[in-house]
Every structure is written in C-alpha cells, then in structure tokens.
C-alpha cells in the first residue's frame, strides 16, 4: 500500500499545525463561526446533534494494522472507545472535544493518516473497490489512480470552495464494486484497441434528494490527460454550477440542466484551452505510485490444504462463514475475507477499540498486515492463506466478529440517523437493528439469499437507500417518523434507482413490511433467481398488492 514520502508527510503535518492555528483563531474571535465552519469541515470536523464528530479519511478504504491500532488508541483517549465505519470507507468518532481535535490529527499524522476533505464543499475522499489487488476481474489496481487523485485533489487551490461536495470513485474491474455510477465522477479503467491505458469517464451520478445515474462523458480518456481533464470538468462545474440553492448545487443538476452533450462541449473546450506547460507527465507519477501497490510477496500457500477440509467438515459454522464471507483471490492458496460489522441487533459499522485491536492483530497475523473498509460498512482482510482461515475464525469469533452474513438480508447499510446526525429526520440504526433481529435465523437468511437493505435517516441518502434492493428512507411527517420503501435499487453495473412502493410506514411496522416484501419475493422467484432479477421480471405490482392490500 501507499507510504508517504517526505512531501506527503510534511504537508499533513503542516495541515495539522494550520488547523491548530485555525482553532485558536476561532476561539480568539479572529474567525467567525461562519468562516470557521468550512475550514473545520475541510478537516473532517462536523457539529452534530450532541457533540462534534471527526471523520477520518481512509483513502480508498485501505489501511494497515498499525493504523487500525492507532484508531483504537484515538477512540479510547479522546472519544468513547468506539468508532463507526461509513459508506464512504471512512471512520467517524462521535464524541471528540474541539480542543482535542488538533491532537487527534497529530496522532493520525504519526501513522500517515489525516481528516483532510472528508467533509466540506470540496473534492472528498476518493473511493474504490475493496477487493482491489485481489479480484481476478481487474485490469490493474484501481488504488493507483485513486491515490493519484487523492494527492491531486488535496488542498487544491482552485477547487476547495466549490458549490457543493464532489465525490469521485474509481473501478478497474468488470464488476463495479465501487458504485461509480452514483458518484459525481465515476472512472472506469480501460484500455483502448492498442492496449493503451485510460478511463471511461462518467459524470453527474449521485444520490441525495435528486438521485441520478451518471452519464458517459468520455468513452475513453487517455491516462496522460486524466488530471488536465478533471481540472476542466471541475472548472466548468465551479463556474457554472448553481449557487442559489444548496439542493441544486451538485454537478448532477448542472449536467441535467445543460444536457450531457452541451456539458461535454463545455468541458472539451475548457480542456483544449488549458495551459499544460507545467504539467508533469501523468505516467511518471503513476509509475511512482504504482510501485507502492506492487503485489505483496505472498508466502507459499497450498490451494487445498487438508487441514482446512477437515475443519470445514467438522465445523458447520466455520464452513458457513467461509462460504459466505470468502471472496476468491487471484493468488492460489489465498482468500479475501469479509469481517462483518453487522452482528444481529448491532449498529451497522460500529466497532469498539478492542475489536479494532483484534482486527489489527488479525491483519498482522493472517493478512500481510492489510485491511480494507468497504462502502457496505464492513472490513475486508484481503490476503488470507486458506490454511490460516480456521485460526482467523477462532480469533474473530472470540470478539463477536464472525457473523456469516456478507450480502445477506442482515448485512444492512445504515447512516447514523437521528441518534447522532443533525440533519436526520428519523432514526436509522434502530430500524436496522429491528430488521436484523427479525431475520436473525441464519438458515432463513441463507434461504432468502443475497439481498441488500439500505437505510437513510433523511433525504440526503448517506445510507444509499436509492440503490438498495430494498431501500428505506426515514422522514418526519408532522413530528412522527415515517419510512418510505423503495424496491429495485442497484449500485453496480446495471445501476438502477429504487422505485417507491407507496405511502410510508410507521417505525414499528418496518420489520413486518420487510418481511412481507421478502415473502412476496420467495413466493414468486424462479429457481436461482435473486431478488433484483425477480423484481425486474415481475415489477412492482405484486409487492404493492402485498403491502397495501388491506389499506384500499
């Protein structure tokens, strides 16, 4: 994985010192609260319902065991001993004191981490495929591009006071595991007919109150033009994007209002006119970063170790966990393993300091020191020898980290909701907990099969409800929580936005509603059909009938 050179380290150190100074200037009145707000947001510091919240950037979700240990230390020393992994592959601490934040940032800098641009109207943490470097279907490691963009976007002089936040995701595999079609810019690594590397560029996707699937801006952009082209896109957005209404300020609205053709013409003409005289060839910096992502030296491993077969035969819990949470690794003898942060009845994505240390230990002993955070709010141990799986499972099992539910109905994405968030209109986590408990039986979960439930506590859609097979949106209807249900959302290659079933339901009724949807699906599905396939075949009507039959 990437390691800072002196330039990176100096910049992060200086940014911490700068923020320390900004905090002091806020306290002595040099900066008004209005002026301080974007400065703290660009350092990941929110003011929430009950306290400040610090969102730490985990670039493209990759971290090492030393960093995970430091996160555990930070959560104990300055927070309440836990953290929350987010749908942006980041981690949030929910209870820091303002005066402690500079020290927390110093502690992050010690392990090559920061909170830069994890919030604010700027280019946010670049996200990517949690199985980068592992999956057999990838062209190259997408994190090389993501790291290049992290640096290019960090403290960008021109694009730090945009009209609204700006999110970029990178995929380099046939299967999109980075949801690039619901980002402001989605990049898909491609090669042209001659084998030259480049990108398919998608623009104007996003969730929030006006969800949209991204449109193609360039079918193939040569790699050499990547940074210049993004500069052109961002400049057109910065100058032309709406500033009169915060809810219409994202690039998706600009692309929608201009039309993709007109927007594309403006970008191309900006791009043609750029002064690129000082540009460093992208290939040079790409090659430097790529060395950091060279495949690790895999210790030799048997592809079908006998001991594993014996353990699988003897322990059905273990066998279920391997079957469900394992992900094929392109290196023979290895498997990537998802550690679910969705125990039955738990808060999705929450981990205690003790669990963080266990994850660090697991990575160190069994995954060449590396971990990934997924946008589904789980952790991936990317490089586990098959012969180590049983020992790993034992370690995780002792700390409540062995839930075998990756992709199942209890692997729920949920935003923090009204329990923490100042924007929320309803609770999210308790809804997730109630559904999780309703479907706790592992056999029943397996029978239902892969099914994503995504819950947001307001229309900003941090819980990605638009792209949940079952999406749940919590609203406030005259002081009462009401939950709107959508069906058929999909963040991947066949990206689609969920369709509303009809009027919302009260909090208590949501698990029952989900159960009715599931029962309808089970009754209608053809052999081998997943929920989305069935839904696309039969449409909304039978689900609507099941949910509202009594109401009419």
């Amino acid at each position, binding site marked *: 994985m990437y390691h800072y050179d002196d330039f990176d380290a100096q910049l992060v150190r200086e940014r911490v010192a700068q923020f320390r100074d900004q905090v002091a*200037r806020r306290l002595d009145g040099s900066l008004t609260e209005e002026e301080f707000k974007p400065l703290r947001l660009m350092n990941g510091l929110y003011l929430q319902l009950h306290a400040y919240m610090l969102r730490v950037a985990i670039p493209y979700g990759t971290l090492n065991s030393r960093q995970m240990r430091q996160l555990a230390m930070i959560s104990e020393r300055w927070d309440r001993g836990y953290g929350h992994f987010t749908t942006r592959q980041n981690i949030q601490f929910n209870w820091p004191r303002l005066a402690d934040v500079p020290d927390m940032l110093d502690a992050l800098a010690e392990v090559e981490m920061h909170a830069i641009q994890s919030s604010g109207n700027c280019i946010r943490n670049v996200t990517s495929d949690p199985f980068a470097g592992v999956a057999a279907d990838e062209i190259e490691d997408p994190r090389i591009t993501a790291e290049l963009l992290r640096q290019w976007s*960090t403290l960008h002089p*021109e694009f730090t006071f945009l009209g609204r936040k700006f999110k970029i995701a990178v995929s380099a595999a046939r299967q999109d595991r980075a949801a690039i079609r619901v980002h402001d810019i989605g990049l898909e690594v491609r090669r042209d007919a001659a084998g030259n590397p480049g990108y398919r560029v998608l623009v104007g996707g996003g969730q929030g109150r006006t969800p949209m699937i991204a449109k193609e801006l360039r079918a193939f952009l040569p790699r050499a033009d990547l940074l210049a082209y993004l500069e052109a896109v961002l400049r057109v957005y*910065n*100058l032309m994007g709406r500033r009169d209404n915060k809810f219409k300020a994202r690039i998706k609205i600009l692309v929608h209002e201009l039309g993709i053709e007109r927007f594309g013409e403006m970008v191309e003409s900006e791009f043609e*006119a750029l*002064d690129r005289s000082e540009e*460093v060839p992208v290939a040079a910096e790409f090659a430097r970063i790529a060395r950091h992502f060279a495949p690790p030296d895999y210790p030799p491993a048997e592809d079908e170790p006998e001991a594993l077969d014996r353990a699988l035969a003897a322990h059905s819990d273990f066998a279920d966990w391997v079957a469900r949470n394992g992900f094929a690794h392109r290196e023979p003898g290895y498997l990537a393993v998802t550690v679910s942060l969705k125990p039955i009845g738990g808060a999705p994505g929450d981990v205690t300091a003790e669990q963080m240390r266990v994850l660090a230990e697991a990575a160190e002993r069994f995954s060449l020191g590396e971990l990934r955070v997924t946008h589904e709010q789980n952790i991936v141990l990317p490089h586990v020898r098959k012969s180590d799986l049983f020992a790993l499972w034992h370690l995780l099992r002792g700390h409540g980290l062995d839930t075998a539910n990756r992709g199942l109905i209890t692997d729920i994405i949920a935003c923090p909701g009204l329990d923490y968030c100042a924007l929320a209109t309803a609770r999210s986590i308790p809804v997730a907990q109630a559904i999780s408990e309703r479907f706790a039986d592992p056999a029943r979960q397996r029978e239902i099969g892969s099914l994503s439930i995504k819950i947001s506590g307001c229309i900003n859609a941090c819980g990605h409800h638009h792209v949940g097979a079952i999406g749940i949106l919590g609203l406030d209807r005259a002081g009462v929580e009401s939950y709107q249900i959508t069906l058929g959302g999909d963040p991947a290659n066949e990206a689609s936005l969920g369709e509303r079933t009809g009027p919302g339901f009260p909090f208590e009724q949501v698990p029952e509603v989900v159960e009715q949807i599931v029962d309808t699906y089970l009754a209608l599905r053809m052999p081998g059909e997943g929920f989305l396939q069935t839904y696309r075949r039969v449409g909304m009507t039978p689900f609507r009938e099941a949910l509202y039959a009594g109401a009419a």
Partner: protein
Amino acid sequence: MPVLRDASGVIADSWIRVDHAGEIADGMKVILPWSEDFAPPAGLPSFMLGLHLPNDIETAKVAPHLARLGLISVDFPSFADGRGFSLGRRLRNLGFRGRLRACGPVIADQFAYLLACGYDEVETPESLDRRQPQPQWERALRAISRGYQPGYAGGRSVMQLRHQYGMEP
C-alpha cells in the same frame, strides 16, 4: 477604507473606482464596473485602465478587452463563493498579464489559494482587517510549504519537485 495587500504586505491602492467613463480625470488610474456595452475608453493607456468583473461573467465577453486592461478586479461576494478562483485561472489562461485583484470578504486562510490561482492582490473590507490583521495573512501564506498541483505553484509543486520536471537544473 478597504485594505489592499499582496504577497509583500499591505500596499497602497493607486487605483480609483469610478462608476462610468465620464468621471475619469487626467492622470487617474481607474477601475470601471463591467457592463454589457463596455468598451475601453479611447485614449486611456492600458496601464491606467482597470475593470471590475462579477464572478458569473461569461469570459468570452471580456476576452477581447484583456490586452487593453492593466488590472482586473474580480468580485468575491462571499468567502464561501469560490467561482472567483476558477475565473482567475481562466483569465490567466486567456493570456491576461495585468494585475489581478480579488475584491470582497475573502479570509486570510484563502490567501495562498488566491495567489496560486493567478491573483496578485486582495482587497478586503476594513471590518475584516480588525479581526484578521496583517500578521495572520503572513502566517497563512507560510502555513503550507507546497501543494501537489503543477501549474499552481510557480514551478514548485510537489509533483514537479518529485520528478524534477520542467525545473531549472
């Protein structure tokens, strides 16, 4: 009185803002406001003519006049409205070589970004200067030694330094 500063410190303002060309007296260096029918007043040399632009101007409209202008002042209606950063870059891209001024309640923490986007000087309201006096602007300029982005740092960006690219040996 608004405060004018550049990278060297607080400086005197030798330009006078006037509402229309009729107010121009001999020897005055003037900043005129933008209007759709703007034309550089005859007989005024470029080093005496400035133009104040709103931040949503269509740059194509002002492009024909750039060679006649000694100064462009770009309006920053609020520090949070970042259009002026891109407008500055675009004006430089179009070949404007005169003095570029950011005008409005921008804050010291944005000073380095403004200079990196092609601005030479910043004109801020007097009230802001009481909260953020000159030492804060100097400190803000030194806070980050170098950014990553080539083309914004006078040849001293991290990416250029790493690869010794396009630099004097």
